[in-house]
């Protein structure tokens, strides 16, 4: 759906998506990095399990919810990546304690 434009000179940051290494760039939000990864990063809603991807990228819609470093339901479009970040795609409701 998206690719990076050619002249992006920002530093590469390695993050992990469901255990797989992904090269993000410094300053990316989690959602931007996930889009750029080309992976299937569709989450499933907590209501019906319908697949979703980020819709607004500005913190409004909550369709970017994702588990970041073990913490569920974070807004991927607002959180910047950091090296070694562990991201898990959420399928349905989060578990308590995660």
């Amino acid at each position: 759906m998206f690719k990076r434009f050619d002249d992006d000179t920002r530093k590469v940051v390695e993050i992990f998506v469901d255990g797989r290494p992904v090269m993000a760039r410094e300053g990316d939000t989690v959602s931007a990095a996930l889009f750029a990864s080309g992976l299937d990063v569709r989450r499933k809603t907590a209501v019906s399990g319908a697949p979703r991807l980020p819709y607004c990228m500005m913190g409004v819609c909550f369709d970017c919810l994702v588990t970041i470093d073990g913490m569920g339901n974070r807004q991927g479009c607002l959180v910047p990546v950091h090296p070694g970040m562990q991201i898990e795609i959420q399928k349905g409701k989060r578990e308590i304690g995660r």
Partner: protein
Amino acid sequence: MTINRPMRDEYDLAVIGAGPAGLAAASLAAQSGLLTLLLDENQGPGGQVWRAVTSTPVKETRLLGDDYWAGSKLVEEVRASGAEILQGATVWSLDRHLEIGISAGGGSQFIRAERVILATGALERPFPIPGWTLPGVMTAGAAQTALKSSGLIPDGKTVVAGQGPLFWLLTAQILRMGGRIDLVLDTTERRNYLRALPHAAAFLTSPYFRKGLAMMREVRSKVRVVSGVTRIAASGNGRLEEVAYEAGGRSVSVPADLLLLHQGVVPNVNLAMSAGVKHRWDDIQLCWSPVLDANGGTSVEGIAIAGDGAGIGGALAAVERGRIAARAAVEALRPQAGAKVPSMETFRAALAKAERGRIFLDVLFRPSKQFRIPGGDTIVCRCEEVTAQDILDSVAIGATGPNQLKAYRRTGMGPCQGRLCGLTVTELMAEARGKPPEEIGYYRLRAPVKPITLSELASLPKNESATKAVVRG
């Protein structure tokens, strides 16, 4: 300097939102000697229009345009002004006593200010077409945000649909950066051109006129534009696969991986409404707007609203509204300091200039009914997955407005708290009941306007009477 929690408990002025309005307000207030705190949820300043202006990888000026880079100047100005700037700080509560709940760096705290300027800007208007929740359908603004902050450009088969000044800007920006767009579906109603005509004279002298025309021309020269689109539906199995549309009575389907939707922006009312600020239905812009005095002052003593949150006026107007609200705060708190800043008249004149021709845009780009008021099994509330028909069923058993509807169907109860369904719900119920939207009303909003963790809430100050109210046999 950027830090991650407020340095004090009390300020003269708290400005919420670091877009054009907030930057301008904070900078003027701090320069005039007010102890000023500027708060914003994003990692960097700029708001929507100047998103990531200090960090974007897209350095070549031509690509994002001069209007984008104009933001850097204001960012520099506020950084030199002495205002305390807190990025990554979400305001989740504001009350009548001007107590502000802030979540930053995983913790929450309260501060108090003598005055508050809400500069929380706008949101893209909901665009509830069939299939708008499918992966691969997103707002045009979302794509633009990804483009500005990370240099992402559409790659697969891409359709852009909608209308409005921002719509054309975004399309032009994507194309300039080598992104792929296969088709542009223009939903502007043909009869709106006639309706807008009486306001054209003012628009001709507006700063937006020439830029707007040039951009539309630029887009038309590069991709196919279908005008007069009257229906759009997205479909696919688990993701977007096809966009169907109707124009001039003809139905067409095209394969697509990405559909970008946009039909204008509307004020972001959640924080203001939760603070008890009175709003009214704006029949021209088709949204809720705060009731304001000439300085942006609201019905709640001490709270002013500036920028697009005060009613859509665009970035230039946002700057001037920010200055007016800030000057009013300076006049109230440090009357002597007011002498050093330009007069209110200067700002008002600048605002009038920036707002010139706005009515033309409002009328021309008034989104048509079928794209605002959906029917059948089209989802209205994305969070709770409630359809238009569900809402009509509730009207049929006697729900008269959004709050009873909420009780029956959970609309607006999800994490977005009605931001993406509220307007649709009001208009849909108004239509179903044959009443004006003003009479239907809006969700009653309360803190937290953005989620905070239970442990954050639990860590806030308590007192004996609060404990007594909870702990009982």
